[in-house]
């Protein structure tokens, strides 16, 4: 509906929109101050017609993929977000997580005032007092004594933040993401020369994915989902084949033509086994590769991984005959102490198959390195945690991350955080980390704030995404992160920043200053260019392309033999990442809590996935409350018998188990982050998420599992409900 609109009207609307919102963005409370009066609809802005919706473009901030959105606004309220069709990333589409962005904006549990800790409670203070307090605490503190922890940041926010920290000579910006593909990035850098190449799923005839949940929660799922749909239709009528290798079925695994369960941690061994099998199918292998995979014959690999020799042969045959293919190393493969090695072995398959340059392509970089995304990892958290433990930091800032919830319990982050002298948390909710702060500064929601964002995964071209308010602020005393940083940097370098009244003015000046490079060469008038930029919501750029290195190397590739089963802790814990709840930052959005997990259909709670065979061995039935114990603690949750998991593994989803944050998050489920073992990838030092060993015991109580699945479970009871045809029977090219 909103895709078909009158372009000219739209621009007119945004011309006004930009200006109108800019005014409200800076002063805030101008009505209260008597500078403006409340005007009835008799005299509205000319775009504000009761019952007629207007649409503004912005950027989704529910995850870091950078999908462009179009907000539907009526009577000054944002009602719904849709995808912006002009974005090469999401092409007009959205995921459930993105749809729930409005529930973040309208959330009843948002923090509304700056809060200063007095004992165990927070006292509401003014922003002036908050800023003065920060200035006071930062006075005389050296750069080494300041730590700034954040989630992934990019764009002008990153620029401002960098400049603020520079003004203290502070180099301690820790970028932390609890479930980032950090090991894969490092492995890609080694294999291809770049951390994040472009994966052309739609061009591949076969996708062999080692635990990359690209339809669910991996890197840029909405983009990959569209690619997947094209891949299934096939460029020349030959439908793409998806083979997924993992120990716990992900959403992507559930859509595979062949889902192969492997013994946890043996993904790299299987990759080398497939290379070996390709060699025997006549694919030319260079001498060093042939030597490296020589011992990975079918029988040995089959024994190590649990994948049958016949299946390995079939995969090799398929990969040889249908080219180009694409091999992906995902989070399930990287989550081990030898995660880097797993990823390197998997990437090697792409080299051997000649996919580099075809389906693994070089991506443009954003030509402004200062704005390029700072991506996070867990090494940063570990370094910060060690520093906090040693009492190195007098002031700690935390923004867009919740380490008290997501750091493994064994790190004792909460205790170490207490050792920092003064803790400032910028937050939307009183989440676990905000609860530990001395000063909590309430942020604007993503739908009422200004910003620029550069996605890490650039799907079609280099682009800078524009974030703009879709409506007036809901709460008078929240602030945008950009405005806060601007106020803080003015405390240090007033002269440089005095001409910017607010972050909007800064952004506008920044964009106009570089108009030529941002596609505005032909537009003389600044206002026209700026309004056009806002109306598009995306600045598309030509960026430098760094060619991928396609030289395969096996130097240093060493895969450990599969680990023997530990008698005391016989099971491997797989903390799973659900497309809606991810690392738990969106857990207070009720649509997501009530959106069933696609595979188990469970809502509002955590569960322990266990294979029916193992469950029978342990005498566990569905709904049994089981205690999952690791060396570092235990959690209790309901058991769910799930056929898509290795019998020697169990899985608990991440994201639930909040002890704070809000009414829809607190008290629902358990938090498996708390019981993780502190095992790290040997090369990168990243936390190995899948390396925790556990035992499971029954507690004796049992509940009814709250799920969408009916009493028939996954059975169709002999009816043709969800039907299937074999690929050799259908003629997709003849379809519409």
């Amino acid at each position, binding site marked *: *509906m909103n895709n*078909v609109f009158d372009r000219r009207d739209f621009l007119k609307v945004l011309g006004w929109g930009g200006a109108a919102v800019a005014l409200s963005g800076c002063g805030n409370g101008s009505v209260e101050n008597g500078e403006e009066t409340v005007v009835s609809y008799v005299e509205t802005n000319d775009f504000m017609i009761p019952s007629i919706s207007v649409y503004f473009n912005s950027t989704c901030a529910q995850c870091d993929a950078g999908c462009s959105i179009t907000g539907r606004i009526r*009577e000054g309220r*944002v009602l*719904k*977000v849709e*995808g912006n069709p002009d974005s090469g990333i*999401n092409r*007009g*589409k*959205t*995921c*459930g*997580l993105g*749809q729930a962005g409005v529930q973040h904006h309208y959330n*009843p549990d948002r923090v509304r005032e700056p809060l200063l800790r007095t004992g165990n409670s927070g006292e509401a203070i003014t922003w002036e007092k908050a800023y003065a307090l920060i200035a006071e605490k930062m006075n005389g503190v050296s750069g080494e004594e300041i730590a700034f922890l954040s989630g992934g940041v990019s764009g002008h926010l990153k620029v401002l933040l960098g400049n603020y920290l520079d003004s203290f000579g502070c180099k301690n910006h820790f970028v932390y993401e609890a479930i980032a593909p950090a090991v894969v990035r490092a492995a890609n850098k080694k294999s291809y020369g770049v951390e994040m190449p472009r994966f052309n799923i739609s061009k591949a005839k076969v996708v062999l994915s080692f635990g990359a949940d690209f339809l669910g929660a991996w890197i840029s799922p*909405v983009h990959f989902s*569209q690619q*997947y*749909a094209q891949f*299934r239709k096939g460029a020349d009528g030959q439908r793409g*084949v998806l083979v*997924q290798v993992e120990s716990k*079925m992900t*959403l992507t695994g*559930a*859509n595979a*033509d*062949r*889902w192969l*369960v492997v013994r946890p941690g043996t993904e790299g061994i299987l990759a080398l086994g497939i290379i070996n099998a390709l060699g025997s199918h006549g694919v030319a292998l260079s001498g060093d590769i042939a030597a490296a995979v020589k011992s990975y014959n079918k029988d040995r690999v089959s024994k190590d991984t649990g994948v049958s020799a016949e299946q390995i042969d*079939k*995969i090799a045959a398929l990969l040889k005959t249908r080219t180009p293919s694409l091999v992906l190393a995902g989070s399930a493969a990287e989550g081990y102490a030898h995660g880097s090695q797993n990823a390197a072995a998997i990437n090697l398959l792409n080299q051997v198959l000649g996919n580099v340059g075809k389906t693994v392509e070089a991506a443009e970089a954003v030509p402004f390195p200062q704005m390029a995304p700072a991506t996070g990892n867990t090494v940063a958290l570990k370094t910060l945690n060690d520093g906090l433990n040693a009492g190195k930091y007098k002031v700690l800032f935390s923004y867009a991350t919740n380490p008290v919830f997501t750091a493994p319990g064994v790190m004792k982050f909460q205790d170490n955080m207490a050792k920092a002298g003064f803790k400032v948390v910028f937050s939307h909710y009183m989440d676990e980390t905000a609860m530990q702060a001395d000063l909590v500064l309430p942020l604007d929601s993503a739908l009422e704030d200004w910003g620029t964002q550069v996605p890490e995964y650039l799907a079609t071209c280099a682009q800078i995404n524009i974030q703009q308010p879709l409506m007036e602020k809901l709460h008078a005393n929240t602030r945008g992160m950009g405005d806060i940083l601007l106020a803080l940097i003015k405390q240090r370098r007033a002269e440089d920043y005095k001409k910017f009244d607010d972050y909007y003015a800064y952004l506008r000046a920044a964009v106009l200053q570089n108009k030529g490079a941002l596609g505005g060469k032909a537009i003389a008038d600044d206002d026209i260019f700026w309004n056009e930029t806002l109306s598009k919501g995306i600045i598309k750029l030509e960026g430098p392309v760094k060619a991928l290195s396609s030289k395969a190397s096996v130097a240093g590739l060493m895969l450990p033999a599969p680990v023997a089963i530990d008698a005391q802790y016989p099971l491997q814990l797989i903390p799973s990442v659900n497309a*809606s709840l991810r690392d738990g930052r969106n857990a207070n959005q009720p*649509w997501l809590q*009530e959106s069933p997990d*696609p*595979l188990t259909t469970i*809502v*509002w709670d955590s569960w322990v996935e266990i294979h029916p065979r193992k469950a029978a061995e342990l005498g566990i039935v569905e709904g049994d409350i089981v205690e999952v114990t690791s060396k570092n603690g235990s959690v209790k949750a309901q058991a769910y018998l799930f*056929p*898509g998991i290795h019998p020697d593994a169990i899985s608990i989803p991440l994201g639930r188990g909040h002890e704070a944050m809000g009414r829809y998050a607190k008290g629902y489920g358990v938090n498996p982050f708390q019981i993780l073992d502190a095992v790290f990838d040997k090369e990168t030092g990243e936390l190995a998420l899948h390396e925790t060993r556990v035992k499971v015991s029954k507690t004796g109580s049992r509940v*009814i599992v*709250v799920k*969408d*699945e009916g009493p028939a*479970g*996954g059975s169709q009871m002999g009816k*043709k*409900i*969800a*039907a*299937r*045809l*074999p*690929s050799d029977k*259908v*003629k997709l090219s003849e*379809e*519409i």
Partner: protein
Amino acid sequence: MSISTLLENYSEFRHFHPVDDVPHNPYKWAMSIDLDACSGCNACSVACYAENNLPVVGREKYLHGQAMHWMRIERYWDEDGREFPDQGAQFLPMMCQQCEAAPCETVCPVGATNHTPDGINSQIYNRCIGSRYCSANCPYKVRYFNWYDYPTTDNVWPAEMNQQLNPDVTVRGKGVMEKCTFCIQRVTVAKNNAKSEGRLVHDGEVQTACQQACPTSAISFGNLVDPESRVHKQWQVQKVELDKDAQTKDKEEGGSDLRGYRILEELRPYPSVMYLERVRETAI
């Protein structure tokens, strides 16, 4: 027409759904869903909550089977006794199938649910008395009853959250049945726009919320009687006919190799949603 004329000449006026001699004109809204593209991600379902003011009922009421998801994703496993589901799962987006001869319509004691001229099974909230016969009679279990007054229930739409409610869609009160409407509020806007311009709604002008969100574009929606519409062409290529309770193509020897089918067609509800079978590779 007087009632006596109607009764005396009933065979002339008698109206079957679906009507093969007088098809819906000029609109018959229908859908097709490609299960080979659907990844089961649930985006459609959340988009439906956002568009149609669906209440979040919470854990306890969900346990009681009182969830209000007009669009839900069903997940099925293969039933051939293999230890691992090594061909993945089967996902099925399920919502009101907008049946032409809807079993829910005939049992409503007050005529709250009936057929619109453009082929949508409508629900008139202020006529509904909550007998729930329709829900009992629905073979797809896609009718949802308001057991509570959600607008006044704690934490369903607390302050601020209520500002998100779509003003184009009624917020339903206690004792009322509700279900997927094919986003009739969007259809109505498109029809009115077209009417004021003296034309018909053209294909693609109206999208349902689930279709618009769907990351794999698995859902098509449009006017089945418009020969230019994608839905019409899909139904035609798949040889699925609206007014059949068993498709001619399925009577071929060895079955049809076309993917189109309708769920529980044999019950003769004549659903308006065609699904395209999922495909699984034979070479691996």
